[in-house]
């Protein structure tokens, strides 16, 4: 079993970083001409949602986290962009193969499967790494929710 127990770092950037990224993406969205037409609300919703996730991934540290990388890759695939990530050692996939073969029988691995479906990029992680990424993901998600809540509260009519 590889790797010692380095202290797990789950510090997330401050709220303003998230706010910044999200507002940037929103302003970029608004520049698009098709955005402001009032009929296609569903498209707008989807775009805003995607912008939210992408900005969250960027704010949370770009490509230094597995789930953020997976998110960015997913988003880039839709827009046919090419995304470059710095190469890392490929130890992760080997570990994943090992645990996958052995563990689906266990009770815990079924739960882990559900978690994997939720967290982006979860299919490529071993269970311990998955839990670490989930913790970070939860923190970032809650931060993003706070930012969006503030925006909506500020902009909605009273």
């Amino acid at each position: 079993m590889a790797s010692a127990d380095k202290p797990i770092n789950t510090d997330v950037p401050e709220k303003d970083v998230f706010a910044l990224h999200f507002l940037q993406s929103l302003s970029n969205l608004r520049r698009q001409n098709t955005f402001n037409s009032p009929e296609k609300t569903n498209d707008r919703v989807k775009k805003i949602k995607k912008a939210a996730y992408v900005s969250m991934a960027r704010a949370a540290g770009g490509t230094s986290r597995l789930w953020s990388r997976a998110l960015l890759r997913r988003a880039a695939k839709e827009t046919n962009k090419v995304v470059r990530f710095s190469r890392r050692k490929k130890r992760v996939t080997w570990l994943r193969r090992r645990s996958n073969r052995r563990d689906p029988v266990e009770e815990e691995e079924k739960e882990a499967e559900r978690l994997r479906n939720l967290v982006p990029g979860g299919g490529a992680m071993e269970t311990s790494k998955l839990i670490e990424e989930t913790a970070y993901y939860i923190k970032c998600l809650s931060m993003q929710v706070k930012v969006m809540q503030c925006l909506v509260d500020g902009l909605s009519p009273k």
Partner: protein
Amino acid sequence: MDLSGGFGARSGGGVPFREVTALESLHLGGGDEFRRMVPPENAGGFTALLELPPTQAVELLHSSSSSSPSQPTLHSLGTLAFPSNSVLMERAARFSVIATEQHNQNGNVSGETTTTSSVPSNERIKTEPAETETCDQAAVEEQNNRCGGKRKDFDKKVKSSTKKKNKSSEESEKLPYVHVRARRGQATDSHSLAERARREKINARMKLLQELVPGCDKIQGTALVLDEIINHVQSLQRQVEMLSMRLASVNPRIDFNLDTILASENGSLMDGNFNGTAMQLAWPHQVMETEQSYHHRQLQQPPPQQWPFDGLNQPVWGREEDQDLGNDHNSLMVGAANLHPNQVKMEL
């Protein structure tokens, strides 16, 4: 396994030189060692074994095969140069080092160490019980360099279980595997050790998660905690979706305001103009509060070309939070409003 069978046949051939005795002793433990070295999940049999210490196994096999050339099983290995006696002894000693690392309780250890006593790797065996980290690293690094990186499961150092150590000593950055001390009264099988180490890691991280998710402290048992966590993640994602829908509905008004801001931005930045547009922004109750703060902030704004985001951010948030202590929303919004037009200016 073929290997043990082959060894047995050859050693029974009665070829009279010293290597055979070494091989024999190796075989006594060797069959077991090799059997245990192959993990049950990777049971590819002979070839899996050969993967592990490729050069050594092949050399050994071939060295004994050259003595009795009538063994058909080894022809496929090809003809290798027959190693000199000393080299062979060294290699045999290394095998015994592997063996000592894995099974310290077996009588094999003593048997093998005695036969290979004449070999220069003696010091390695002697320092084994001393358990100094550097020596472990040296011995283990050797093997690692030789045998490739696939020995994660096998290279656990198991010290005798009578040592009541509760910590597991782990080599962190240099080697890709873990040296674990077995606790008292627990099985020292390498697989259960790996399992236990893994469990501990997972449990440690679960504790982290439990602190994060509200209401998870009370729950006992990992399955329920995981359920809670999954629910939490799902609720957060749903919240994001809801908020994005609300934002989309609010959006047209943002556009309007932004357009006006943009128009004013084109002219000049530090004006009453900006203040005027700030008034036009559809933020109901906050505008009254924050009018003064807008003023203040504009007076203190650095020229836009040199505007460092980070530099401005901190004072903005800080001041706002001093003013509106209980009102996070306001602070965020005011700061955001300030950010946004300047941002746009930069993009222009």
